[in-house]
């Protein structure tokens, strides 16, 4: 059996990489993806704890997180398409003006 | 020709170079499409990939020699091309063609119309994904080509219609062949209609697609089924009867919707009308009679006469060495080809070679309306529209 803290450490590593990607990447879409990576890392922790504690709450929460991620992706990508249409770029450094 | 640079899209749009090698452009048509997603913002047709300079070549041939070139223009309607050219030259000469030859011409041209519409229907259907219709249509076209082979010895480049008449007497057994075809064909047309007319996908793909208003269609000089589907019963066979069409009884099918579906219905109805005309011509053609006008010096004499009569031999020699010389002047004749108004303009300067031969090719002029039909529509509609305009690139580029 795999000890639970292995999962938690893996989750932490993935979350950290997600944070790093969020700061480092310059393409809006990739930044969006790093958010998804962080959410996934958290999901892993949820499932691991759920298994460790023998309760299903964690898994139910994962489902909720996935739903939220899906809505977020739908709206976020819609915004990205709009930005790309108006600004002709996906680089965050070039879309730092608040007005269109 | 248009280079891509003249049609660079903005960042919102994408330029798609459709053709010249593309399965649905029916030849080597190239269309520059500026797309927003899948919607066509702008379309620029680009022609000339099949330009063979037929009009120029005609200037260097005698009047009779040029007939073989006309076959190659609209390769789905070679007999119609022969006919319009011969009618123009006959008009220039003031030549009267015997009735029997006129009826044979009518029958052959109507058979050709059916075969052309069959190719159109088949390719249009396969463009929209209906594969079986294509093969059914070609199965029937094969029967027509067999009849052509019987009459002319050729399946496609027939060169059958000659100045002053037709090349050969109808062969033995032609009545059975045409009769069989006339018996078979109506049920086959029903078969295509069963597959398509009520088919919801087919209606969805064609109804409301490629609309053009009647005024626009006339202003853009569109003709043939595309114009008739917009609501005008303008058919050269009725408006300016040639080759004794005034003696035939037939209707000019029209629709008013002016979309791809209307054009489809008009063409299918035309096939049925053509069958009616063929039946009438079939009955009118007598078993005996002249097939060429009596015009020594223009029409080559018969073989037997050549062997017995001195004059016949001289005419034969003169016709084939230097040709004949019509009086100076111009003639412009229009006939109804399967694609629309096919015109031929011949100018003579009194020499044995034409000064100028010009063809008013319906595909070329109808194709002009393509951008108007497809702008604002989807890529899938582009092929539906190309299909229903029914272009033959050999005729567009000449």
């Amino acid at each position: 059996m795999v000890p639970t803290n292995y999962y938690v450490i893996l989750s932490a590593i993935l979350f950290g990489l997600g944070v790093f990607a969020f700061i480092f990447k310059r393409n809006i879409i990739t930044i969006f993806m790093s958010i998804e990576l962080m959410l996934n890392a958290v999901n892993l922790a949820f499932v691991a704890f759920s298994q460790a504690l023998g309760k299903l709450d964690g898994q139910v929460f994962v489902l909720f997180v996935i739903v939220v991620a899906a809505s977020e992706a739908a709206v976020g990508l819609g915004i990205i398409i709009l930005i790309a249409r108006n600004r002709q770029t996906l680089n965050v450094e070039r879309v730092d003006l608040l007005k269109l | 020709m248009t280079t891509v640079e003249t049609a660079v899209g903005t960042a919102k749009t994408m330029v798609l170079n459709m053709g010249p090698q593309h399965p649905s452009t029916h030849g080597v048509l190239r269309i520059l499409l500026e797309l927003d997603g899948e919607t066509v913002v702008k379309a620029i047709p680009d022609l000339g990939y099949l330009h063979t300079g037929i009009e120029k070549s005609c200037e260097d041939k005698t009047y009779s020699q040029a007939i073989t070139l006309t076959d190659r223009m609209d390769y789905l309607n070679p007999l119609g091309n022969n006919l319009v050219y011969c009618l123009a030259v006959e008009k220039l000469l003031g030549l009267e063609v015997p009735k029997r030859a006129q009826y044979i011409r009518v029958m052959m041209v109507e058979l050709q119309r059916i075969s052309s519409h069959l190719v159109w229907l088949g390719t249009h259907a396969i463009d929209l994904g209906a594969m079986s219709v294509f093969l059914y249509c070609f199965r029937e076209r094969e029967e027509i080509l067999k009849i052509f082979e019987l009459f002319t010895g050729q399946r496609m480049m027939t060169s059958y219609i000659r100045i002053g008449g037709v090349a050969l007497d109808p062969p033995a057994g032609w009545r059975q062949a045409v009769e069989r075809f006339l018996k078979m064909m109506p049920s086959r047309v029903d078969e295509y209609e069963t597959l398509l007319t009520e088919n919801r996908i087919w209606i969805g793909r064609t109804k409301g697609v490629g609309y053009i208003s009647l005024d626009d269609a006339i202003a853009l000089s569109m003709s043939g089924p595309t114009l008739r589907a917009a609501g005008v019963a303008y058919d050269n066979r009725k408006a300016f009867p040639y080759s004794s069409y005034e003696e035939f009884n037939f209707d000019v099918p029209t629709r008013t919707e002016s979309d791809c579906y209307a054009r489809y219905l008009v063409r299918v109805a035309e096939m049925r009308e053509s069958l009616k005309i063929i039946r009438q011509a079939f009955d009118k053609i007598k078993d005996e009679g002249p097939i060429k006008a009596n015009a020594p010096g223009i029409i080559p004499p018969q073989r037997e006469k050549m062997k017995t009569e001195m004059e016949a031999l001289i005419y034969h020699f003169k016709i084939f060495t230097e040709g004949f010389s019509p009086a100076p002047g111009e003639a412009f004749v229009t006939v109804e080809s399967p694609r629309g108004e096919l015109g031929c303009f011949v100018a003579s300067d009194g020499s044995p070679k034409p000064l100028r031969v010009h063809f008013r090719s319906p595909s070329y002029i109808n194709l002009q309306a393509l951008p108007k039909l497809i702008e604002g529509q989807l890529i899938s509609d582009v092929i539906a529209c190309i299909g229903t305009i029914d272009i033959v690139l050999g005729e567009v580029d000449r």
Partner: protein
Amino acid sequence: MTAALVVFFVLAALAVIGAVSLILQKHPIHSALSLIVVMVALAGLYLLLGAEFVAAVQIIVYGGAIMVLFVFVIMLLNAGVEEHTSISKMAGAPGLLLVVALAGFVAATIAKSTESVQAAPQTGEIASTLGISNMIFKDFVYPFELTSFLILVAVLGATVLAQREKS
């Protein structure tokens, strides 16, 4: 080393490699592919944890819908290779620092509370799919309704955003 542990390490390695590759790849499509690898690896880990349903949902929703949406948008916008300015390269340094700090914090927390987390791992005795549905539709029915409302709002929002202005 049991078979489960081997599988865990393989999948964990895949996940980490995928995440690192997400950062290193220059083209968004490659980053997206790396993220898909992470997600598939995580689905494998969920299976290992006995959460079958979550694993399937992870692949169907994350892999089959959300990431397809990402790939779709990248293709649609024809996104090119990422550009970095000197400032954005500099942003890597504090980012790295932050990550190290975070990892240290998590490690420290885990080290402190080893006993509490390392409770005897239970196997998936509870039929997980049935259990989850019971929880969702009984205990969590209000949050569930709320998320469906959220989805509805998201759909509406995406539609409004995607709508062209009438010209």
